[in-house]
Structure formats: C-alpha cells, structure tokens
C-alpha cells in the first residue's frame, strides 16, 4: 500500500527510509501517512500514526505516540512534537521529541530541540539549542499555534556560583 506513495516522496532515496532499527531512521509501515512532495499544508497537523513529510508544512505537527520523518524533500516551518522525530530535510521551528530525535547528515535544522536522546550526524546543518536530559523523558509539550518565525532561544538555566581557581 505504501509503495504507491513512494513516487511522491521525491528526494527520499529508499535507503533512507528503511531502518528504524539501527540509526533510528524511519521505516514506513502500512499505517504510515504521507504528505507528498507536491503538497503544502498550512495549519495544525495531528497524526495518530507514523508519518512521512516529503512536502511542505507550515504551522504545527503533533504525533505524541508516533514517529514523524521529514524526508529530504520535506520542508517544515513549524513546531514538531512527536515520540520520535527524524529529519533528512529542512526544519525551521522547535522540535520536541518525547523519546528520540535524529538529525541526519542531509538535514538543515534551525530551532531548538528538546529530547532525552538526540543524535546528530556529521554534515547536518544545525543552528540552535539542544536540551538533553538522559535521565528523564521529556515532559513538556510545546504550545500549539501557527508559527510565524523561529522563536528566540530560551534558557531558564541558572548558574550556581562556584569558585574558579584562576590564578
């Protein structure tokens, strides 16, 4: 069933869509939804199944219990919240992975990533912050509203003062 959609996913070579087992890259199943390369969606996309985005999405993408894969031709100008997020294409917005985020070598990501486990491959173009906490799953969910621009990086970090032993 999925194979009939593959021709619409331009720029996503088959090899990149095969393994969810090793590098965490998306393996589409019969339950996978596809936003094809010629499709542009503006608004909020809520998915109750795994999804490949090979087209363009502006707004918000939410799949709390599923895997969102941005194919090489995919352009997402939106905040993304999902269990697993893998990116081969272009993302401008905040990325919240509840379990894992994978930024592959072909990707171009500008925004802030929040996830317990983040993998970034050499070659990826990334500008922004990565919030990692290997001990806990991510609890916070980003607010849902259309994105007009990339949010400024935020940091609630406090810096406990310790004495530097500078001589």
């Amino acid at each position, binding site marked *: 069933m999925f194979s009939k959609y593959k021709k619409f996913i331009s720029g996503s070579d088959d090899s990149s869509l095969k393994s969810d087992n090793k590098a965490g890259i998306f393996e589409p199943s019969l339950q996978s939804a596809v936003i094809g390369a010629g499709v542009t969606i503006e608004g909020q996309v809520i998915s109750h199944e795994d999804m490949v985005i090979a087209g363009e999405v502006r707004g918000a993408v939410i799949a709390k219990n599923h895997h969102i894969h941005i194919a090489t031709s995919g352009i997402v100008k939106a905040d993304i919240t999902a269990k697993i997020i893998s990116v081969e294409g272009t993302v401008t917005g905040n990325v919240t992975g509840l379990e894992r985020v994978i930024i592959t070598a072909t990707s171009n990501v500008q925004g802030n990533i929040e996830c317990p486990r983040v993998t970034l491959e050499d070659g990826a173009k990334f500008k922004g912050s990565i919030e*990692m906490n290997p001990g806990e799953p991510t609890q916070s969910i980003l607010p849902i509203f259309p994105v007009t621009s990339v949010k400024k990086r*935020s940091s609630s970090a406090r810096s406990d*003062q310790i004495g*530097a*032993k500078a001589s």
Partner: protein
Amino acid sequence: MPQPPIQPKTTSLQQAPKLLPSALLAELLERIDTDKRLVVLDMGHAMASTVRFFGEYRCQLNFIDLYAEQFILTPDPELTHSQRVAAMREALNLAPSAKIDICLFWDIFNYLDDAHTKALIEVLEPHISTATGALVINPRDSRHYLPFYRYGIADQDNFMQVESTGTQPTIFARSQRDLNNLVDYFAIDRGRLISEGRAEYLLFENRNIDKTDRSMI
C-alpha cells in the same frame, strides 16, 4: 602593534574527523559543577561527537556557528561599534537570563578583528559568571599558521577536528598576551601546546587579574 591579516587558503575535500588530544578539557570539567544542568555555548558548527559527549549530561547545548556569519565571511569595516554589537547579539541569540557554564570558543578569535572581538565579549558579559569556563584554540604565537579546522569534543581527553571546506576567512593572528587583553573579564588560566603550531587555553572569568604579565608570549 596589530599583525596584518594572513592570506586565506581554500580547501575542497573534507577529511575524516581526527582526534586532537586535549589536556585542558578534563580540567575544565573538573572545575565546574557537572551535576547540575549545564549550559554550553559552542561557537562552532554542530558536530556529532559534541552532541554525543554532552548527551551524557543534563544540559542545554547551543550551537552558534559564528563562522558562518556575514561579519566573518564578508566583514564590513564601516560598521559602528553599536552595529557590530547588534549583529553579534543577533547571532548569539541568547535569552537575557541565560548563564553560560562552558563556552567553547575554539579558534573563533582568529577570525574576528579586534572590534568584533570586543563586540563579542561585550555581548557575552551578562551571561558570564565566576563559574564560567572557556576553551580557546590559538596559534602558539602570531607567526604560526592557523590550520583550517572545525572542532568538537570526542571525550574528556580529546577534541575532534575535521578539516573545513571552502575558503578560510581572513585570519587575525594575535599573541597570547594580546588575546588575553582583548578578552577583558576572561583571563587565560593556563595553556598547553598542541599539534600543528597551536595552543589550547583554558579561560575563566577573572576581573581582578593583573594582565600586564610580561611572561606571556
């Protein structure tokens, strides 16, 4: 006397990442409280090994990629100080309340003229505390050639370096003493010689240090 800019070189083939032993990264990590949530500022390009390394810590890792900014690639000498500060603030994009624990400058100061270096230091100042530690890679002295690398962290005893592609931006080589004076509230705590005519420096915030030390090269 400022050194004249060094002619850049161009490379096209990207090499595999190589380990670069570091004696000072482990010392930096020993001297900061890594049990709390860390805020790390990496002035360079996002590298896989750096993300892997800090993935073991509770932290916010910020990749700035200052090397890709226009004021390095095509610097405009006509800019005023306030314009340079504004450009630097926009590039760093830090939240007003952010306090940095680790600042990985790598060799960025070699690609900034004095005016831009001062702008960077000024923009960083509100985000620096006495607990902030920083690492810098520099030529051993202003006569040494600076290799064109991107840097990351492999483990606490090794950096990762990979040859950059494209044209190396104009280099503004400085002696250790000149750099120490330019970084204002930071002070070079110690330095170690590393390969290819370079040195690594460990910096801490220290406003009280006497920077007239003539023993620096």
